């Protein structure tokens, strides 16, 4: 029983959503379109939407001349290492909190939430000093260690939500069969929460891949730069080459967006659920 008013309301909802979707989507489309435009097309007046001459020149220039492939390799290495370490540590912690520290667990979760409050700029100062003392300034290992500071608390928080869904009965059965805590965890629990762990891992990867501030402060040689800082340095060039910048941006943003699409259903609520329930 849809009334006329409901129908009009629906039409308005669609119009509103289409406008929002276009605005949300537009920068990605524009980056991709501009990444294959020639410099003539980029500065054409009036603005040309579609490229007149399709070219991969920008991509080739960015990768071959500007060494962007190296930056991508750095970022991949750093993001993957961060993700692996963070996920191992966080899955154990999340499971431990859910199973063994039911009371202490809520306090631990609160501590984790509190760490979210620490301004990254505040942490950046001690990090740069400690890394200097430890001889880890301008190293990829140093950056991985620093990235754990935001990956681990966040991953634990998300994973607690996933581990809570595992019924304790299954574990007790395994324990009766003589499995110890570690065996129960690895053989029984982990497979059950694997989808959640994968989602958390992807989210951790995206955040490490996207990170900017710590990378800016801790890395200063071109060959060790991550993609964000390398992209920033393109912006500091004498003559701005927007074609290059769009091609490099496309290389950075497309993996993030694609990965994000995979986990979009899992991520919903992941942030608030841990604290609400």
């Amino acid at each position, binding site marked *: 029983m849809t009334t006329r008013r409901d129908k009009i309301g629906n039409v308005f909802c669609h119009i509103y959503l289409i406008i929002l979707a276009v605005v*949300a989507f537009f920068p990605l489309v524009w980056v991709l379109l501009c990444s294959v435009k020639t410099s003539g097309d980029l500065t054409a007046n009036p603005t040309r939407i579609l490229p007149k001459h399709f070219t991969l020149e920008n991509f080739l220039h960015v990768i071959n001349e500007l060494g962007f492939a190296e930056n991508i390799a750095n970022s991949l290495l750093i993001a993957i290492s961060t993700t692996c370490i963070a996920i191992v540590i966080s899955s154990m912690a999340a499971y431990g909190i859910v199973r063994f520290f039911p009371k202490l667990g809520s306090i631990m979760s609160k501590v984790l939430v509190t760490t979210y409050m*620490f*301004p990254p*700029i505040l942490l950046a100062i001690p990090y740069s000093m400690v890394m200097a003392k430890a001889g880890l300034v301008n190293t990829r290992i140093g950056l991985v260690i620093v990235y754990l500071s935001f990956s681990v608390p966040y991953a634990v928080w998300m994973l607690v939500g996933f581990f809570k869904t595992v019924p304790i009965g299954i574990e007790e059965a395994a324990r009766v069969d003589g499995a110890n805590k570690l065996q129960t965890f690895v053989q029984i629990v982990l497979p059950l929460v694997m989808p959640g762990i994968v989602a958390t891992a992807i989210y951790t990867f995206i955040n490490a891949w996207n990170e900017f501030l710590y990378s800016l402060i801790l890395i200063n040689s071109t060959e060790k730069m991550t993609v964000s800082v390398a992209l920033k340095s393109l912006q500091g060039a004498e003559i701005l080459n927007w074609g290059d910048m769009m091609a490099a941006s496309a290389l950075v943003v497309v993996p993030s967006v694609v990965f994000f699409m995979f986990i*979009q259903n899992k991520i919903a609520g992941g942030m*608030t659920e841990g604290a609400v329930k």
Partner: protein
Amino acid sequence: MKRKVKFDYARWIFVLPALVIVGALLIYPIFSSLYYSMTTKHLIRASYDFIGVDNYKAVLSDSNFYKAFFTSILWTVGSLFGQLFIGFTAALAINRVNMGKGVYRTLMIIPWAFPSIVIALSWKWILNGVSGFVPNLLVQLGICSELPQFLSDSGLVFLTLIFINVWFGAPMIMVNVLSALQTIPQEQYEAAQIDGASKVQQFWYITVPHIKIVVGLLVVLRTIWVFNNFDIIYLLTGGGPANATTTMPIYAYNMGWNTKLLGRSSAVTMLLLAFLLMICVVYFTIIGKWEKEDK
């Protein structure tokens, strides 16, 4: 259940690595910052002295600090209001329509995945004052007589930044509110309809109570995030033109890495943290009250 008398160390092994990380990478730096904030620590010079609260005095008597503080407040309140409004209305609209829910959601979620440097570069290019898409479009449509300079005109730049931050942050609100909306049992609406409740009444008495804790938490998380955000403004305007967009994190960064006074920069960041703590205490008191009402 009977507890084992023997000390159960296995359970500690599970949480220990994470505790070490949190302790070493989050708790220790706070105290070390607190210490450095009372020294003359310099970015390059090796030696430094303990000077008590002098850094705090210097910061608190700097008019630029207050300017940055108010810019931060405006930036946070403006962005938060925009993100909540767009995120919330988008979630309600998606929840209402029957067709294309998934498509809308997928398209709208894209900004969330953007690295801050790409947010900055893509919008800088779209809003570019010479060949940018939007300025040229506005001129062609006859809305503007000359190309608007969104990122360098001191009258426009702040609104532009807030717009971009809303673009980036609204999807997160939208997704979380949407998933909270979907947990509301449909029968409640049906029952309300039978009782003759209007749409507005249904919204206030069914929808709002169900999602207000989630929304409250989102507001806390977003406030912290926006207030602390450094990347977006630094990469888009660098705090300019003429300090018009210098927020607290940018001010602290410049103090530490341009003026090279790391000690004084630490003092700024400690004040930043203190302010956030105050805000969070207020928020959590409110949310705690709501949770009690629920039970």
